[in-house]
């Protein structure tokens, strides 16, 4: 029996077809440590693309895509083995269901990963999650009592720092109630393949590259340019200004000066 941890040097989405059956532009490769944003109008197929990766599609979804691992199509046994394990996914309808305190649960997770010091790992993850969440939670809070944003923050921190999955898929983190810039920071450092579907310009520019969707297929792939990186800095500052203003309004301060 192999260990539960998995490694992957390259994931390829081999091209499928768009909603009218026309072939997609080309294959797309994903590498560890690389963050890719999926952009495109509502209904253009971003979530479908994520689902294709999650299910290790083998020409058995509407898009006809195939997922290759390290350049090869996994055989049926391998595919079965990886189902539910290769990919950690964060969607809006996911919640914690276990009746346990946060610290106890994360420690348990760290133990199952054979961490040298599970308690220390748990503290680190809880701190990371609290840095993402709006309102911090206590280590002994119940998992099921966390707010939507706190749950998402804990899921992101745990997936980035402790999960065995080399691939992390996120659908619309901007609506998750977490500090997206910090979340991105954490994910970039995690050395995972990260793919994010988003409508948010800051997130889009935070990614190393962007896939543009149209009519159910990838139309273009754009690497982030140096000028775009500068634009990101500018945008981030504007956003910070925006949140400072929101905070002051929330506290009932005067903002007319």
């Amino acid at each position: 029996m192999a260990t539960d941890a998995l490694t992957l040097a390259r994931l390829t989405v081999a091209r499928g077809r768009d909603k009218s059956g026309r072939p997609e532009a080309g294959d797309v490769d994903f590498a560890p440590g690389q963050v890719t944003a999926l952009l495109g109008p509502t209904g253009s197929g971003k979530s479908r693309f994520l689902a294709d990766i999650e299910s290790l599609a083998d020409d058995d979804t509407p898009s006809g895509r195939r997922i290759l691992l390290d350049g090869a199509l996994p055989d049926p046994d391998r595919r079965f083995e990886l189902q539910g394990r290769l990919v950690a996914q964060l969607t809006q309808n996911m919640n914690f269901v276990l009746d346990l305190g946060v610290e106890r649960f994360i420690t348990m997770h760290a133990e199952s990963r054979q961490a040298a010091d599970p308690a220390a790992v748990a503290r680190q993850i809880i701190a990371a999650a609290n840095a993402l969440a709006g309102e911090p939670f206590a280590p002994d809070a119940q998992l099921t009592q966390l707010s939507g944003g706190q749950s998402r923050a804990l899921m992101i921190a745990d997936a980035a720092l402790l999960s065995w999955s080399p691939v992390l898929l996120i659908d619309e983190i901007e609506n998750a109630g977490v500090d997206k810039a910090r979340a991105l920071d954490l994910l970039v450092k995690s050395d995972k393949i990260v793919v994010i579907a988003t409508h948010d310009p800051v997130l889009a520019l935070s990614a190393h590259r962007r896939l543009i969707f149209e009519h159910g297929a990838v139309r273009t792939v754009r690497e982030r340019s140096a000028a775009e990186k500068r634009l990101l800095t500018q945008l981030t500052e504007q956003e910070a200004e925006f949140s400072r203003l929101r905070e002051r309004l929330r506290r009932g301060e005067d903002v007319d000066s």
Partner: protein
Amino acid sequence: MRLVTLAGPPACGKTSVLLRTCAALREAGVSCAVLKFDCLLTRDAEAYAAAGIPATAALAGGLCPDHFFATNLEEAFAWAQGTGAECCVIETAGLCNRCSPHLRGALALCVVDNLMGIDAPEKIGPMLRLADLVLVTKGDLVSQAEREVYRHRIRQMNNRAVIRHVNGLTGQGCRELAAVLSRAPQVETVTDMRLRFAMPAAVCSYCLSETRIGSRYQKGNVKKVKFGGPGAGQTEVVDGD
């Protein structure tokens, strides 16, 4: 005929997974027949029949469905042979968690879902501990962290089984499961096959319809508890006579 036992707690997704798996088997040219053993009520046979899979259900009523299964296995097998199916799957929702329908020489599957609580793998007992393949469902509803911890717990209870994640709603993993079923052991006859786990003895006067409370009415296999024994929360069990 290939023989498979499929056990798991109520509503964990056994039928959902098996429906999709049988469909994949049919595409591969392998026909299935399904028997469901349950206690009081089941609509599973209709669900299978609606999908064009020969199916029948047997209700144990007041008996344990797994005991009832063992008593009726020869007849069940004969029925499945009569359908001409190549693969016979027997679904049971072992209710007491102490019994298990798994047979030596047949493929033993256990289904558990991700929603049952962290101690569920420990509580489920022999139907999980003695399974060849453990299928975990409803991963779509929980976090990756929970899936991983849960899987670890299952591994601790059964370090021999293959553990796989499947989804009863989307059918993810069912095509691959079908390939496993199509390689299940061929069984000529079930007569003289052995259960993997001796069913717990449960014959006491209450098994025989006694309703009155009191030691004087209790005969047969009776265990008495000594409450408040040594150690907080500990109780000692002593065999009655």
